């Protein structure tokens, strides 16, 4: 039996052999691997790029105090970006499943339409949810827009739900019974996060404090964006990546406040708009920053 970590090793190995940079998880809280700069910013512009990384993804509202066998506050996504998407992208993907021992002649694979949209990121794409014997194991998306910008090169994004995939391969009904490493279960490693973060997110997070933090991070991102000058000769130095971290902080705070039941209907639309404005602002500045400055062109 392959452990959780072995499955991750094999998938990383598989994609490394196909030209992907293997990145480590991004060190700011995100709701999905898509939000990491390695995806959100790298898909912009005309430079080809291939990357794979495991990203712990936090969804405060999905927490269940470690009680529910299928639902997690924090789950692990394997995020693969192939930019531009190669012609044989689906073959490559199916090959990755075979690499972790799934015999696709004896299992049922279906590609069912599932388009993806993230309003807070000004991003959308079309694609499928990939079903393996009735289980959704991967989200497959051809990005079309990001940060409100039509993409130059169309990347394929593959997002594997690693806990699900492992539960399938290990034939486990509860995610907590997955074997993470020989003799160590997923529950041994992660149960405490699930319990304690559920308590925090649903019961103890201080709403006033979180709002203050939201305002502070928003203010810092907005301050930086305002200072970005597309005409500046040294615009490459400008810390847009740092500004983007502030946006990610806002997004996670919004999710936590939401799971705490602290966001009213009237506020909700407005807060989403505030995050979106910053995310789109960073994306557009980033796209500009990738272009040589006007002065350099003149030289």
């Amino acid at each position, binding site marked *: 039996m392959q452990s959780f970590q072995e499955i991750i090793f094999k998938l990383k190995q598989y994609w490394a052999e196909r030209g992907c940079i293997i990145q480590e998880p991004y060190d700011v809280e995100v709701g999905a691997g898509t939000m990491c700069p390695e995806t959100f910013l790298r898909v912009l512009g005309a430079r080809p790029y291939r990357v794979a990384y495991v990203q712990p993804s936090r969804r405060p509202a999905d927490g269940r105090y470690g009680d*529910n066998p299928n639902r997690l506050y924090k789950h692990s996504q394997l995020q693969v970006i192939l930019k531009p*998407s190669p012609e044989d992208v689906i073959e490559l993907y199916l090959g990755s499943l075979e690499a972790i021992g799934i015999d696709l002649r004896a299992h049922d694979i279906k590609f069912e339409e599932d388009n993806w949209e993230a309003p807070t990121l000004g991003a959308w794409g079309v694609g499928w949810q990939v079903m393996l014997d009735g289980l959704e194991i991967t989200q497959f998306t051809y990005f079309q827009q990001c940060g409100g910008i039509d993409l130059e090169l*169309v990347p394929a994004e593959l997002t594997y739900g690693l806990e699900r995939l492992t539960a399938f391969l290990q034939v486990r009904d509860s995610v907590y019974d997955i074997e993470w490493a020989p003799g160590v279960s997923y529950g041994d490693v992660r149960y405490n996060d699930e319990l304690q973060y559920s308590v925090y997110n649903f019961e103890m997070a201080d709403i006033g404090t979180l709002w203050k933090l939201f305002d502070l991070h928003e203010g810092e991102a907005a301050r930086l964006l305002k200072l970005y000058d597309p005409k500046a000769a040294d615009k490459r130095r400008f810390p847009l990546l740092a500004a983007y971290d502030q946006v990610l902080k806002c997004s996670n705070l919004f999710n936590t406040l939401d799971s705490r039941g602290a966001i009213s209907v009237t506020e909700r639309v407005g807060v989403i708009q505030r995050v979106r404005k910053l995310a789109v602002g960073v994306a557009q500045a980033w796209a500009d920053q990738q272009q040589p400055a006007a002065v350099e062109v003149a030289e």
Partner: protein
Amino acid sequence: MSLPFLLEIGVEEIPDWMIRGALENLRLLFEKLEIPHDSVTMDATPRRLVLRADGLPERQADREERVTGPAASAPAQAVGGFARKQGVKPEDLTVETTAKGKYYSFVKKVAGRRTKDILAESLPGVILQIYFPKTMYWTGKGGPRFIRPIRWIVALLGEEIVPFALAGVRSGALTAGHRRLGAKEIAITPADYEERLKDHYVILSAEARRDKILGELVGVRFRPDPALLDTLVYLTEYPTAITGSFDAQFLELPEEVLVTVMRHHQKYFSVEDAEGRLAPQFAAVMNIPSDPEGFVRRGNERVLRARFNDARFFWETDQKKKLADRVQDLAHVTFQAKLGSYLEKTERMVGLVRDLGGEEQAVRAAELAKCDLTTELVKEFTELQGVVGGLYARAQGEPEAVWQAIYDQYKPENIEEAIPRNRTGQIVALADKVDTLQGCFRVGLIPSGSRDPFALRRAAQGVVKILVEGEVRTPLLNLTGGDAQLKDFFEDRVRYYFRDFRGFKYDEVNAAMAAGWSDLVDLLERLERIRDLRPTPDFEPLAASFKRIRNILEQAQFTGGGVAFDASLLEPGPERELYEEYQRIAGQPIESVISRLRPKVDLFFDKILVNAPDARVRQNRLTLLKTLLAEFSTIADFSEIVTNS
């Protein structure tokens, strides 16, 4: 020589529900090329759109074209120049007499173009013109758009490749088999194409895939579901049906929940026992030929078990907080950004229920109607909103009228579906829909063309259907909130309902609606009367006479104001007889008087000149006609009836 033509567009998995529309579209685009052919066959799997035609000519027929040159009077040099340009000798030219004079001309033989060339030139455009509801680009910004990336193209006329390139793909003679069971490149000809595909685990014909699934389910008491079957037929290239089972203890959960999980989330057919009750089994369709080890069955069973466990967990958790205790939580659920929360909607609905004459039970149902939106079960299975609320209300001891009203509140979801089963439910469903319609129209969210994101057409159609079929006598015009656009919107739905759904003739609907369409129960009665009257011999002639009356009144710009009717001005004979007949029959239903009225009207028009020289007489006649028209126009404006005469 006539040739077979084969076009296969190899695509990454196309959304199942778009495939048939795309095929029909492709057929029309091909027909528009006007290349002669015999039969056309269309086929598709998720990965290929296929057009096959027989009997295409190798080339178009040759044709002749007359080319006109200089005038007969032109100098020889000009004539010679023209001949040279056309590649003939001057003596080959003839002089033709045209309307403009005499001209040199010449009959040019134009060789028919090769069909292969025509196809090669037009197929890229044909393919890219196929309509899909949502398209993508994949070769880079500004590149071609299609539903999903095109990966190969087969284009054969006879044995020859029709050469073209599209989105970086060159047409050829190589198809692809099943993703994992077939070869990636298979050389084919139009003759062996379908057979070769089958060798590589692709069943080209949707009918054959359907028959295969149904054949494998013989003996299984599955609940027929044509829409689900269609989905599965277009989601697979080599479908095989299997059955699986689940723990019978899940049958304690409401059947609605189990069936929804199986159908909407897992695409399984439900199975019944001999008594028609839900059995702890399901039927699934996989995209491979067999499951000898039971991997696929067991995998699906585990997924279903997890889903059912979730549902049971939600069901039990939700019961800990009654619907009635959830009303305030609706403040946190958005109805629509500009229209506020579901708490606000609930308050408006309660008001509407009272306006509609709802009793206390209807008010109670409206108060609780949206509370299930805060439950875990509905968050997970949104398509069960309403149903779940109804089930919880029943479990929490609400009276039958109340829980049924909550259960049925979204009905009818289409024009075929039944309306809510009791009056309380009808009132609540009306209040819900009317609130949505009034709200959306108020903030400018009005459907345009095919864009109707809030499903307002369906809501308005539901209002019309409930008013008619529930025999609710509330005037429809009281439900527009004074919005003129909403009034027009309802008018369209009323027309559609009676004409397209109930099958009344369009002119009868126009005639009846012209006499009013606010009380829809009354409108239905009048439409039925007109339908029954129509075949009677006096009807159409009388309708024609009414049209004539209306025209006369319009031409005279007669408003009827001012002068009172004066019986002493009536001429003896047809005019007076018509008046007397009118007096006898006024107030009686048209059915019982039509046979007496018609001859009098006919005779009047036969003998009497309405446009009499004496202005007073003329005025009086117009008044008589107007009175007559008004008397019988309460059921319909008969001048709207299209007659043969």
